[in-house]
Each structure stands twice: as C-alpha cells, then as structure tokens.
C-alpha cells in the first residue's frame, strides 16, 4: 500500500523552489531598505552554516524543532490543527525546571532523565487535554482553543516561577539551577546534546506510525473524510484525542530537552516560540518525517545566522521570520500551481 503523493520527487522540488524564491524576494526587500543583499546573505550563510561555531549552534537548535515536528506530524496528518505548541512546550519546560533539581538528587541519572522526560511529556499532553476533549465531544474548533491555552500557559508559568516554584536563593524569577552533571549528556566528541538524536528518533517513529500502523491509517482517513471514518465504524472521538495528545506530548518533551540541555533552569519570561517555526516546517515537509530534518536545519540555521548578522549589519533579527513567512507563502503558491498542473 503506497502513499500516493508523499513519495514523489516533485514535492521536494517545490519545497526547495519556494525557499529559493523566498531568498530572492528577501534580497529584493533588502535592496529596498538600503542593505546589500550579497553582504547579508553572504554573512548569513557563512556564519550560520560554514563557521564551526555557527554550524554547531544551528545543529543544536534543531533538537526542539525535530521533537515538536514529530508530534505535529501526528495531528496534522489527522487534520487536527494544534496551534498551541508554545503553551505545551512551556508547561513541559517548567515542569522540568521545577522537578529536575530534586529528582536528580534522588534518582540515578538514567532514571532521573526518563522521569523528567515523562513528566514533561505528560504536562504537554495535559495542556492539550481540554482542547482535545472539546474537539472530540463538541467539535469545538481546536485552533482557537489551543491558541487560548497558549496565553494561559504563558501567564501561568510566569506566575509559577515568581511564586510557588521560585528559587529563593536567586533574585530573578526562575527555578533552581540544574548542576552541570545533571544536564543532558553530549553526543560523544561533540558539543551537541543528545536531544538531536532523540528528535531524529521521535521523528522517524512518527513517520512510520503514520504510514504503517492502524492509528496512522485512522489519522489519514480522518483527514480526508470524517464522515467515511464514522460510517465505517472508526471511533472518531478516540482518534481525535490521540492525535492531539501525541502532539502535545512531544511539545512538552521538547521543553524538557531545552531546559535540561541548554537553559539549565526555567526563567519566567523565557519563550523561544518554536511553534512559529515548527508549524510551517511540517507543512513545508508535507508531513514527511524525512523531509523535516533538512528543513529543520535550514530554519535553525536561518535563526542562528540571522542573530549573528543582526549584530553586524543592523538588519533586525525578525528579518529571518520574514524569510520564513515568505517561504510559506511561496509554498502555498506552489501547491496551487501543482494542483493546476495536474489537469
């Protein structure tokens, strides 16, 4: 049983093409605001991809994107739109920041890691439980409910680190620092933490879950024809809840990975907003786990390189978000063209 579109070469071509067009349009915009695009992109690529520091930095930044994308694969391929990745990420992160210092001193290292990861993932799942149930039972639009849960999460974690789980020994609103030896370990001979490997594994598991398992099959049927799913006896509510819970769980896990590996604690106003990058990413990859990896690298390279360049050339850092947006725009256009060409 072969998937019809996913495996063809054409989709990859269109995705690459939309990136190229986005870069070209970005260059035109740079000219308009009086910057030299050659200089900008030259430095962007050099710093983000070809300097050892930039390269490592870009690769490290892939981890949360990969983990989040793994979850989004599940819900998007069921036609469920979890827009609240940020909120679930923050809940996972805050749980990790709060529990890690204590658990680390009580449990042996591997078990401690697994428990914190499980706790964070469950936190993410818990955070999407309400939208999932509302969707499954009352068909309430999950785009709106998950987005609302985002705001609740952002405010909740800020409050938590100011009060209940604040580390009294430090002045700013944050949790206690996790000692270096309790952080996530590195891939041998590198300074890249194992979150990257976790991400890749998650991604490929989900890639195959969607294509080979009965749950994935249910997702795909639900995406294209909910009535047929119901008619043929599928438990639509159960599938809906699973699709959303899986995506929430992975988002929570991504939060754990970032806290344990990079931050070492949870800070009140910290919100990397990976959702904004991961959601377009999964679309661009057309729900294909393999395609997510290079695209995740590209996007994290953009943000790392963009940071470097912003300092040097005074192009605001959000310019890379403009590039991301443009990529998605061209991608939408390419999908349209592709559909027309089919006739």
């Amino acid at each position, binding site marked *: *049983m*072969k*998937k*019809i579109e996913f495996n063809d070469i054409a989709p990859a071509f269109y995705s690459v093409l939309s990136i190229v067009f986005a870069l070209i349009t970005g260059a035109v915009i740079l000219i308009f605001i009086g910057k030299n695009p050659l200089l900008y992109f030259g430095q962007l690529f050099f710093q983000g991809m070809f300097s050892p520091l930039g390269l490592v930095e870009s690769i490290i930044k892939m981890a949360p994107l990969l983990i989040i994308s793994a979850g989004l694969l599940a819900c998007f391929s069921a036609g469920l739109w979890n827009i609240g990745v940020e909120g679930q990420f923050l809940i996972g992160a805050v749980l990790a920041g709060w529990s890690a210092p204590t658990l680390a001193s009580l449990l042996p290292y591997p078990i401690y890691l697994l428990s914190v990861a499980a706790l964070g993932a469950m936190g993410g799942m818990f955070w999407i439980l309400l939208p999932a149930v509302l969707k499954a039972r009352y068909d309430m639009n999950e785009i709106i409910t998950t987005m609302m849960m985002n705001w609740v999460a952002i405010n909740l974690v800020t409050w938590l680190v100011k009060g209940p789980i604040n580390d009294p020994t430090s002045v700013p609103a944050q949790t206690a620092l996790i000692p270096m030896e309790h952080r996530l370990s590195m891939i041998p001979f590198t300074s890249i933490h194992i979150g990257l490997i976790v991400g890749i594994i998650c991604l490929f598991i989900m890639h195959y879950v969607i294509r*080979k*398992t*009965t*749950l994935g*099959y*249910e997702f*795909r*049927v639900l*995406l*294209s*024809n909910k*009535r*047929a799913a*119901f*008619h*043929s*006896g*599928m*438990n639509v509510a159960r599938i809906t809840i699973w699709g959303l819970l899986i995506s929430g769980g992975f988002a929570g896990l991504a939060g754990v990975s970032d806290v344990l590996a990079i931050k070492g604690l949870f800070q009140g106003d910290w919100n990397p907003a990976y959702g904004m990058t991961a959601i377009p990413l999964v679309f661009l990859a057309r729900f294909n786990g393999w395609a997510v990896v290079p695209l995740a690298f590209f996007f994290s390279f953009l943000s790392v390189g963009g940071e470097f360049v912003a300092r040097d050339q005074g192009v605001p850092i959000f310019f890379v978000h403009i590039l991301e947006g443009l990529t998605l725009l061209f991608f939408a256009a390419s999908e349209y063209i592709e559909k027309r060409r089919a*006739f």
Partner: protein
Amino acid sequence: MNVPPLIKTAGITKSFPGVLANDHIDFDLFPGEVHTLLGENGAGKTTLMNILYGLYQPDEGHIEVCGQKTRIRSPYDSLKLGIGMVHQHFALIPNLSVLENLVLGFEGGFILNMKDAEKKLKRISEEYGQAIDPHELIQNLSVGERQRTEIIKTLFRGSEALILDEPTSVLTPIEAEELFQTITTLKNAGKGVVLITHKLNEALAISDRISILSLGRKIAELNGDELRSMDEKDATEKILNIMFGGKPIPECSLVEKTISDQVVLKLEDVEVMNSRGVVGLNKVSFEIRGGEIFGIAGVDGNGQKSLCEAIGGQRELVSGRIRFRGEDISRKSVSKRHEMGISYITDDRMNEGCVLDLSLAENAILRGYCQPPYSRFNIIDNTVVDRFANKLIMDFDVKATGPYVRTGTLSGGNIQKFILARGLSTEPGLIICSKPTYGLDARTVNYIQELLLEESKQGTSVLLITSEMDELINCSDRIGVLFNGKIMAILDKCDATPEKIGKLMLGIEE
C-alpha cells in the same frame, strides 16, 4: 441544419496516467436538440464533458462554440460561452440558501443585488416550470430539489447548452418525470441539452440523437431518423449490441432457492431519529430469514437511510430492539456488527463509502483494517492489503490501473463497483445494500443483481433498498414499503405489483 452547432468537438483526445480516456472524439450539439451519450462505466463520458466545461484541457483536438474555434480554460470561460454543467456528484454549498448559491461567483458587480436576482430566479422558474423556494437552505432540500437548483443555476447564468451527467440516477421516478418535462421545455426554447445516462429507456424516450462511447472512442452515432425507424425493443437491442459487442446480457434468472427457517435479522418496534432530529423510523418491525432478499420500497427520504444506519450501527435507537442471529445488537458498535457479519453498502459512495483522496488499496480496508490478515499488532501489512485490493479490482472488473491510484480518479460507476466488491468480499451473513446498481451500466447492473441472487442462494440474507421498481420486484422475495418512517405493508413476491407498491409508497392503503 444550417445553424452552426452550439458546441462541436473535433478529435478531442485526453489521456491520464495509464488511461486513454478520450480518443479522437468528434461530438456536436445543435440548438433545440437532446443529444444523449451512452457508454459503459469508464468509457470517458464524464471526461469529455469536463473538457467542454473547462475542468480538463484536451491533449489534442479543438472545441468550437457557435462556429468559433475557442479554448475553454476554466469553468468560468465555459459559463461565459453559455455552457452549463450539472455534475454526476454535484456540489452546492449546504448552508447557503438557494438564492445565495445562485449568485455565488456570478459577476454582476461587487454588491450582490439580491432583489434583482430573486426576480430573475422567479422568471426562470416560471418559464421552465421549475418551482423552488429561493430562501430555503440547500441542506434542507431533497436530492431532486438540489438538482433542480443546479439546473436553475446554469440557466440563471444564461447557458445555451446544458450538460446533465447522469441526472436521473439520484431521482425518484416522479422527479425524473419532472426533469424530462423540463428538458423538453428547454429543448423547445432552443437550448441544447447533452444527457448522460445508463438507462436506455430514458435515452430512447427523449433523445434526438444518441452517441455511444466505448473505451474512450466514439463507436456509433444514431441520428433522429434511425431512432424513429425502430421501435423501443429493436433500438434497445441494437444499442446493447453496439455497447457490449453482442455479448449476451445474463437475464435475472429465477432459479429455485430455499429460504431457511432461521431468522437472521429481526427488528422489534425500532424507533430512531433521522439526521435532522425528526422521527426517522416509527416502530418498525420485520424479520429476514437466511437466504432471503427483503426489498424496501419507498420514495427517497421516507426513512431508508435511518433504517440502514439503525441496522449498520451508525444511528442510535431511541427505542426497540434489533437482533442478529438471535443476539441483541441494539447497543453494539459499527465495527462489532461488521465483525459479526453485517455488511452495509451505502448509497452515498462519494461521502461515506470511500475516501476519495486515498488510494484504492487504502480504501479496500476501510472496514477491516483492524483485523488480521490486514493488520497484526496494529501494523498494517501492505502486501496483503495490495493483494486484496487487486483481487477486488479483478473480480469486479473495476477500471483502474492498479491498487495505488487515487480513488477519486475513478469514474463514478467504477467507484460504485469497487465499493460493492469490498462490501461483498467478507462473506457476510447479512448484506444491507442501498441502491446497489445506481450509476452502473446495463451489463454491470445485471451482474450485480445476479450476484445478490447468488449470495442469497448461499444462505446470505439481503436487505435491498432500491428505487428501481424492476430491480425490486425481480430480486426480492418479500417487499416492505416504507412511508413516513413506517412500514405500510409487507408484500410477498407473488402479489407485489408496481401499481400496488406505487400506491403504498404514497401512503395510500388498500
């Protein structure tokens, strides 16, 4: 005729991956005529019309409209050229009103002038005898009324040529009668009508010309003189001969069969609500025995859907009980009932019966995906699934290039064949089939009817819901007539006559 044809195609060729759907087709339509297209399932009728409607571009050949060579790039172009099409599976927007649907996408300035539109709608309705309430929501209309809206929509946009793709397959006999009156009116008003159908009697009754397609080629054209020179029987024979190359069509045989004493399905005072929250079935009771074909007659919308879904498990009972082989299944889930051997073949093939965006292989296991051999430990075994899909395609002669094609690319009749193949493949104990032969060509209709009889001879029970009187009377052992959610009467085969059934269907008791 000296007037140029409204539409003319010359050498139209269109191929899809692995299929030559249209092969150098010359076709024309004059003002004031009904030109009928006949042909087996997958012959290329819909494709040719979609080309005229601008949905597909031909690979070769050209189109002339009123003598002018033109290119039709989109439905928008074709509407401007005065060509309107009502599709095999039409698409109105359910939660808009009739009027809103009519003005949708219609150029007439940015501000929709509803008052003018309503006046115009009224004029068209009167002119062509197509009464419809402009403010009714589409979702509340019957299929026949929706189709009427589609026709009005094309007239509203000033179409001179009308393409109707299998319009009667979804209509009740009365609605079909009304449609033919409309077609006649249109014809007399000088419009041209292309009619696609599988029912030869309809084609012969109304056509001025008949073209026959087969495997993408036009293999015959019968003009008015030829048609008039034959009586209906000769003409039917001749057309079938052309269409199916003289291969004999198996008649519905009446071989003796035995109906067992075992009651397979038993409904006891079943009550359900239909999808609009109104009583769908009102204390319905009957039983079906092993090997029996129980026919259900009735005007569409009198509880047929509720009945199927109550037994299939998609609809909850308000009261009453359903037993299958003695076991109470009233509270069992759809998949449980399916496992027990109840196979429900829906008449809504595009929306319920299959997932158009998925492949045939994926659709083949829509019901059985959870069970071995299709999956083990929740892992789907693709080799088995592919082989199964291939078998369905072979057994039912489904016209498709393989199990991987997107189901939506199949012709309407071939999708129906595939769904039937799947529904009959599980060796069920009870088959519920609603309009099993709709949209199928004459030969396949016979094949399916034969097959249902064959199944019943093997001891399978069948609940056959159909609006075809011939099918109903030929195939059923007993016939129940549904009216307003109630079984009006249950007739034995020997005393079921069309007249009797017709009266009961309208709620007239003896």
